[in-house]
């Protein structure tokens, strides 16, 4: 039995990529995730690789059902990413993608927080090259902002694990919980990578700036690694239910008015994570199964959607809704694949989202969180609007932009076809997914009542879309951007640097000068009166002392007589 960390397989494998060329490189890159998948399948359960360091036992390879399901899906995502990027010649970008995927897989199999931290930072550093590889000034700026946020998350994780080590004497990566400062810091580190509300905007800022192939890879790993980490460390933490509900709801408004289709998908990614976070917060076996299952199907259909929009960007040079439309005429296969992805994310029966998201919703109702359930239902209707309809409609149908391009390259079509087949395969035969979930599954999504209510929700939302668009109420696509929390560090911070800080600093300098002058005068006065030559520091002759004693006695006598 080979007991080798599957993450390291990809990382070491990536080192050979720049050396190989042509078909050999392609074959090597395809072989790595396939071999990795087999390795994940073969590994026995347990702590397979222990190392002693810093007086701690580090578990480099912990295999259990939770880590294995994430191991599988990460290998599948790597394979899809490799096939989709086979036409890319830049070895650096291809190697970075494999190192990034390997780091995420390594993190999933990490049994302690120190190992997790090392892989956590490696995902940040490797992935930034996928954004830089776009080679535009916007991408470079976004890459730097992305890197600062990601490394910041790692620093918080490191601080948290050190505090926790002091508090508990252990760096094991099991249930952590919010008690104690260490737990809070680690929670925050996970929360940044998971794009919690208000910590989310790095995602919408950076993913649409990456290369066509880079965004597909990015969409799979970073945030789902955070989902895994939350499921491992904070299952059943009630705060997550509310955070997740907010996260599922707010991005849909932004997605609806966003023009860049890849940014629409980034908002939609954020919203899907919200469902998983709610599942982790509920923390029952059904809910955690739902979160893992939803992460699994989500990675595939989200990659599929990014691949289809990426293919359009690759062929037309734009992903802006205002510039697209009518592309079904020249990219029919891409259109069909995009619709399959859209149907999956919208949770149509027989598609993958239906069998995974419904587990989370069922668990929410079981635990009696009716308000949260209503929010998630609203968010589900919203998903249909911006992902289910908006992406395919404004890209491939709607107003014909007149663009006539070639169909996507064959390797992109193959990757999309595999992803689409998996979306339908999971939807039609859910037990394949249910069998690899962390806990035994006793759940049937295909009841009459569930299929009917889901179709009602979706088709009446589609009806609303039709009515709104035909009556002209639906907001037009416009060549604009919308403010989000990145405003604080892209605009307010610049205002502080350029205007408020110089203004403040000149005020500060003035105040400081005045204060210094005052202090100097005080010291001078002190010196004048109490210094060596000061009137109050002079040594007095004995005679004057006698005189003052006489004055005092005189005064005393006077007072005595007055009484």
């Amino acid at each position: 039995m080979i007991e080798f960390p599957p993450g390291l397989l990809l990382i070491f494998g990536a080192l050979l990529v720049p050396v190989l060329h042509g078909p050999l490189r392609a074959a090597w890159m395809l072989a790595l995730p396939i071999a990795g998948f087999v390795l994940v399948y073969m590994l026995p359960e347990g702590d397979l690789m222990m190392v002693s360091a810093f007086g701690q036992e580090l578990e480099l390879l912990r295999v259990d059902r939770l880590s294995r399901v994430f191991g599988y899906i990460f290998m599948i995502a790597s394979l899809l990413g490799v096939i989709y990027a086979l036409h890319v010649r830049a070895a650096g970008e291809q190697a970075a993608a494999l190192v990034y995927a390997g780091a995420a897989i390594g993190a999933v199999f990490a049994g302690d927080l120190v190992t997790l931290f090392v892989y956590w930072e490696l995902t940040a550093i490797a992935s930034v090259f996928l954004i830089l590889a776009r080679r535009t000034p916007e991408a470079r700026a976004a890459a730097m902002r992305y890197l600062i946020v990601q490394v910041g998350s790692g620093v918080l994780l490191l601080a948290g694990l050190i505090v926790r080590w002091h508090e508990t004497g252990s760096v094991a990566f099991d249930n952590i919980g919010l008690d104690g400062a260490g737990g809070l810091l680690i929670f925050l580190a996970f929360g940044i990578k998971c794009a919690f509300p208000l910590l989310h905007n790095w995602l919408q800022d950076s993913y649409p700036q990456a290369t066509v192939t880079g965004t597909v890879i990015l969409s799979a790993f970073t945030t789902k690694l955070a989902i895994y980490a939350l499921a491992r460390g904070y299952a059943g933490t009630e705060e997550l239910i509310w955070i997740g509900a907010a996260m599922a709801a707010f991005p849909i408004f932004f997605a609806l008015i966003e023009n860049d289709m890849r940014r629409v998908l980034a908002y939609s990614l954020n919203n899907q994570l919200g469902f998983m976070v709610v599942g982790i917060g509920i923390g029952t076996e059904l809910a955690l199964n739902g979160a893992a299952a939803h992460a699994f199907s989500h990675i595939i259909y989200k990659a599929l959607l990014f691949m289809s929009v990426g293919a359009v960007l690759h062929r037309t040079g734009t992903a802006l809704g205002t510039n697209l439309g009518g592309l079904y005429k020249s990219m029919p296969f891409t259109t069909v694949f995009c619709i399959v992805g859209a149907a999956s994310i919208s949770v149509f029966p027989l598609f993958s989202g239906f069998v995974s998201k419904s587990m989370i919703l069922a668990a929410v109702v079981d635990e009696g969180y009716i308000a949260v359930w209503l929010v998630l239902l609203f968010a589900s209707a919203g998903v249909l609007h911006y992902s289910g309809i908006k992406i395919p409609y404004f890209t491939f149908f709607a107003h014909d932009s007149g663009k006539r391009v070639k169909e996507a390259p064959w390797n992109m079509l193959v990757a999309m076809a595999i992803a689409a087949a998996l979306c339908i395969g999971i939807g039609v035969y859910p037990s394949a997914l249910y069998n690899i979930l962390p806990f035994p599954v006793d759940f049937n999504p295909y009841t009459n009542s569930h299929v009917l209510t889901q179709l009602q929700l979706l088709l009446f939302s589609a009806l609303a879309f039709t009515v709104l668009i035909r009556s002209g109420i639906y907001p037009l696509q416009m060549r604009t951007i919308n403010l989000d929390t990145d405003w604080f560090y892209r605009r307010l911070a610049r205002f502080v640097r350029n205007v408020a800080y110089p203004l403040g600093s000149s005020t500060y300098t003035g105040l400081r000068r005045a204060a210094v002058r005052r202090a100097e005068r005080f010291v001078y006065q002190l010196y004048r009166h109490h210094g060596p030559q000061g009137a109050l520091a002079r040594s007095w002759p004995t005679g004057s002392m006698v005189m003052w004693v006489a004055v005092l006695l005189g005064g005393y006598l006077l007072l005595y007589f007055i009484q």
Partner: protein
Amino acid sequence: MTENAPVAEEPDEKRTWWLDRKENVTKILRALYGVCAVLLLADLVVDRHPETQIEAIPFYYGIYGFVGSVILVMTAKLMRKFLMRREDYYDD
């Protein structure tokens, strides 16, 4: 934004597609209305096993989807008033 030069437009694109014809779009819309009507009828026939009180309301999911969508779109449209900026807002 150009990453790949677009392929030259094919001159013989005078062809009309099935969806270019208005009557076909109307057909699709009629199909949607028809399906919605069937789903409303099914609501009366199928026992939905409501687990929450609110679900027991007739046509609950259809109403929630429709009203929720309208509220979503109107709110998002309103948000544009506050959040929308020119494309080069961050560029200067």
